[in-house]
């Protein structure tokens, strides 16, 4: 798998980055984490993992009370109003190589995350220390932003701090201010076992210089041998594959929801809708497909041969 917590911590030590470590039972939410790590040790962070429609991924790491408006963020990235949503669980495992509840800026240490954009809350800079999970959710570490920056630079990343609460106008004469942080490459999460994640070979935009990466992450266990081409006409597969079909419907629904409904809880609502409805809708889509096929099949049996 990817970088382990211990590998990360020893890397920090090697770079002489000062940090404090807190061990606790595994926690899945900030509320739980707060029970074990007091705010006197540093500012807790909330870490969100998003994806856009073109399969590009983003980690947003913010202060707990910073309001992260997905609609605004999406516009500032130049993706329109409903352009981003929470990334699915598989992406967490595939790209960040961490478990649920463990999104963290440190995940970019993994090769698999090289095309994931990392945006950090500007407000972190006002804190003496900030708290993150070091790739495992039964440990938290606190360190200064300069420590975090040093680490990020050591893996070839330019630390990017952004005012996450700003809501600048985006229009014809005011280009989206965060568009420059949209990853250059999109990432296909493998559906067949023998796909390799990244699409292109060119380096991502937000790597400044070629730095030697620390311990190479282990080669993915899936071999590229006898690859069946998965790059199908994506338009066609939406109508052939019930699951893709449902994803398309829910994407459009979320988009509309984001553009029509105001308020903090829209993202949570969109996610709940998606989670609860996906299986129901897929079942319906399969029945629809079966019905259509059967009608066609029957028509085929009644088909008159072509006149000579």
């Amino acid at each position, binding site marked *: 798998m990817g970088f382990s917590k211990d590998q990360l911590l020893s890397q920090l030590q090697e770079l002489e980055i000062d940090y404090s470590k807190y061990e606790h039972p595994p926690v899945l939410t900030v509320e739980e984490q707060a029970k074990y790590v007091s705010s006197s040790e540093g500012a807790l962070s909330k870490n969100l993992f998003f994806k856009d429609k073109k399969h590009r991924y983003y980690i947003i790491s913010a202060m707990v009370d910073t309001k992260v408006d997905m609609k605004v963020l999406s516009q500032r990235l130049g993706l329109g109003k409903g352009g981003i949503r929470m990334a699915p669980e598989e992406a967490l495992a*595939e790209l960040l190589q961490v478990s649920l509840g463990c999104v963290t800026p440190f995940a970019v240490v993994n090769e698999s995350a090289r095309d994931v954009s990392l945006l950090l809350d500007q407000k972190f800079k006002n804190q003496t220390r900030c708290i993150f999970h070091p790739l495992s959710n039964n440990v938290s570490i606190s360190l200064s932003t300069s420590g975090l920056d040093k680490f990020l630079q050591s893996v070839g990343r330019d630390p990017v701090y952004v005012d996450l609460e700003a809501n600048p106008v985006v229009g014809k004469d005011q280009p989206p201010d965060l568009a420059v942080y949209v990853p250059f490459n999109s990432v296909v999460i493998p*559906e067949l*076992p023998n796909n390799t994640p990244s699409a292109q070979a060119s380096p991502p935009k937000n790597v400044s210089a070629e730095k030697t990466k620390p311990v190479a992450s282990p080669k993915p266990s899936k071999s590229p041998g006898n690859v069946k081409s998965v790059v199908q006409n994506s338009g066609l597969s939406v109508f052939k594959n019930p699951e893709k079909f449902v994803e398309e419907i829910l994407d459009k629904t979320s988009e509309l929801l984001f553009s029509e409904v105001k308020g903090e809880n829209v993202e949570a609502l969109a996610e709940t809708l998606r989670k609860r409805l996906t299986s129901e809708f897929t079942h319906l889509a*399969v029945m629809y497909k079966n019905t259509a096929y*059967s009608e066609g099949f029957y028509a085929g049996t009644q088909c008159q041969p072509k006149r000579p």
Partner: protein
Amino acid sequence: MEVDKKEETASDSSEQVVNPWEVSAKDGGKIDYDKLIDQFGCQRLDESLIDRVHRLTSRQPHVFLRRGVFFAHRDFNEVLDEYERGDKFYLYTGRGPSSEALHLGHLIPFMFTKYLQEAFKVPLVIQLTDDEKCMWKNLSVEESQRLARENAKDIIACGFDVTKTFIFSDFDYVGGAFYKNMVKVAKCVTLNKAMGIFGFSGEDHIGKLSFPPVQAVPSFPSSFPHLFPGNDKLRCLIPCAIDQDPYFRMTRDVAPRLGYSKPALIESSFFPALQAKNGKMSASDPNSAIYVTDTAKDIKNKINRYAFSGGQDSIEKHREIGANLEVDIPVKYLSFFLEDDTELEHIKKEYGEGRMLTGEVKKRLTEVLTEMVERHRMARAAVTDEMVDAFMAVRPLPTMFE
């Protein structure tokens, strides 16, 4: 490594009996699955295999895997190895259409197989053993064929993809390449061996004796030349209840001698009867089971009146000691059908420590089952005879691995 053990005869009730025609626990107690795995010689499905499935399919493993409903296997790890290398497999499962009334226990292998089909993107063949039921249950040929088609509708309602699924009934399909394989298999199994594996005796009619090859050969891709032409090495994975193991032990024994790959198996435990006694839910006792035709009212009544409770006799005693989760049927059923792991854990904790009462658990179960049965009924209503014909047509499935 296959060991051909002599099955205990049905009259020996001091030992548990598990074979395709009878399932009963020792002295009316619980089925000992560890002993069964030991006796049959199959493997336990452990966490590492489940994690592997999670990684290979990029989705959460099915609730039946997470909760240990499908708990045993043969060669599943090999199938996963090959899948990882890009070598796919196909699924084979079946039903003996002995009655029109399907209960939840019958749906379990189909629900799981549907998940396997979606998660691994592989094709599926479903065998309806109308000939078997005609012989064993003494049904007429016409009746067993009719039941097969009726059951096919319930199976289709579970949500199988017609572009990746071939359903066939023995009376319709046996012949050609399928029959050739049957004869090849039959030549490899002596009468004595068949009697040893299946418990046949001199009193049984010869139809029964000649049946096992019918259930064996769908494991071989060459039995379906319209589906897998030239793909003789394609591996087969069989999800089934563990009482079917004898058929496939025989098949695995014979396969190498025919130059075929051994089918892999993934096996489930039995869905307990509502009243908890006996080994498994039985279609012959209507109150032992929840049927897919039950109304919401029926379900509520059956659960309230017949579901064996592990709660204590009085509320005071219950709050003091908590429920006996080992024998409680509602909790057992929830562990099969309640998707949310956290909620299940919560219920087990609260109920086991006496804070939640039997009534609440039964109420939640009723909700879950009603929703499931309702969804099934709606899907079933959408299955037309044309759709059954389409699923059962001998046709190629060009997109079966997509």
